[in-house]
């Protein structure tokens, strides 16, 4: 077994030489998490805004659910999607289990509540301030939604990036519904878990480094974006 020092050097080499196995895993991770976040954003932004602007029966329950699901443990999300997609489940006929699509669905389930709940909060706060002025300028409530989303863009982008951070860092959900199949559903987090347990430290370390850099970059970008926008917009 290699020493940790050696493992580091080999890991670094894997990254710099763009090792095909490592690259494949990184690309699949990105593809899955970005798709999940994109879908969650397309649903979450209008959903959050609608919940913020309209009163309807069950609204309180929906808000409570969204907030509660923000902290949904990834393994539980994975289990839920597994039950839906397994052969006996309601969506079993589509044969999605152990495919990247299943992983996208599971991560979407993890990220959607975050985006929708935080969007509701942001839009509701803005609406308190804007409601009379927008009505005065001739905007309907529905027409106010894109206006509010745009004016809340700084917080919303931060929210979406937070969602991406959560999606790309979780193991439990993708492991359960993806199965960590080599070359098909193996992503960074599941690969790290497996390779570490198998003792292949260089690949685990290499992936760990890439994942860490990615998440750090995303968080850094969110921070810088917020700062510069705040400085600009007052």
């Amino acid at each position, binding site marked *: 077994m290699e020493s940790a020092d050696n493992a580091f050097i080999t890991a670094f080499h894997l990254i710099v030489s763009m090792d095909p196995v490592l690259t494949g895993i990184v690309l699949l991770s990105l593809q899955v998490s970005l798709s999940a976040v994109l879908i969650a954003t397309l649903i979450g932004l209008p959903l959050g805004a609608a919940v913020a602007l309209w009163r309807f029966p069950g609204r309180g329950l929906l808000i409570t659910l969204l907030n509660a699901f923000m902290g949904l443990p990834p393994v539980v999300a994975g289990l839920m999607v597994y039950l839906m997609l397994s052969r006996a489940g309601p969506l079993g006929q589509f044969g999605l289990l152990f495919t990247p699509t299943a992983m996208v669905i599971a991560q979407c389930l993890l990220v959607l509540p975050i985006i929708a709940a935080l969007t509701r909060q942001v839009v509701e706060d803005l609406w308190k301030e804007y409601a*009379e002025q927008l*009505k*005065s*300028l*001739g*905007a309907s409530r529905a027409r106010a939604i894109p206006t509010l989303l745009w*004016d809340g863009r700084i917080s919303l982008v931060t929210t979406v990036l937070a969602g991406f951070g959560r999606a790309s860092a979780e193991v439990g959900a993708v492991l359960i519904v993806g199965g960590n199949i080599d070359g098909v559903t193996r992503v960074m987090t599941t690969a790290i878990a497996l390779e570490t347990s198998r003792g292949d430290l260089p690949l685990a370390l290499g992936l760990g480094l890439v994942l860490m850099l990615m998440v750090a970059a995303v968080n850094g970008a969110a921070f810088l974006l917020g700062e510069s926008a705040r400085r*600009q917009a*007052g």
Partner: protein
Amino acid sequence: MSDLRVPVGLLPLALREVGFRHGDQDLLKGITLQFGSSGKTLVMGPNGAGKSLLMRLCHGLLRPTEGSIRWHGGGRLGGQALRRRQAMVFQRPVLLRRSARANVEYPLVLQGVSRRQRRRQADAALERFGLSALAGRPARVLSGGEQQRLALARAWVMRPEILFLDEPTSALDPAATKAVEDAVLTFHEEGTRIVMSSHNLGQARRLADDVVFLCRGRLLEHSPAETFFTAPASAEAAAFLRGDLVW
């Protein structure tokens, strides 16, 4: 036959026995008055008299709980169509988190005006209110006076038949106040009906053609400015003018 493309003027605006109740409190009650098709009306009264409430009711931001508010030329127009022919400038303007120019363009975006037209009209309005140099600045970093002028420029592109201003200068210094008063006169010269609240007597004397005086949710006077300032009919208005009944 009249040309159907030219909308009939909305004014006059008639309020009949208008009341606004909240819980068991009559915040406004028994307001009957008419705003004719031209001129500058100042809505006066001590704090909490109901001035803001009255203007929000007229503008359609709130519904009266009693009585009726009728636009003579309103016909069957809905609230939104009605509001698009009016404008309101609030005590603290709510500016969108965008550039000054984008703020002025916004009501035109709502009306579906083409991008080029929008740009042209917005630039003309910014120019008119001395804001051209600030067009690209984020609206939220402008000074209080600039923000209020920007709100006026935004109202300007709507070509309102009537402009409501709710104490638009109460948070401004004298120079900025003067700029707002000049802007009000500009609107007036273009034929916009002015309804403005203020508790600044000097300002009211400078601007008013007629005065609506409210006290504790009641309409105590609606008279020509000279009459109101020289011979107020109610004891409350007289006290208000002496400065005894301010808050």
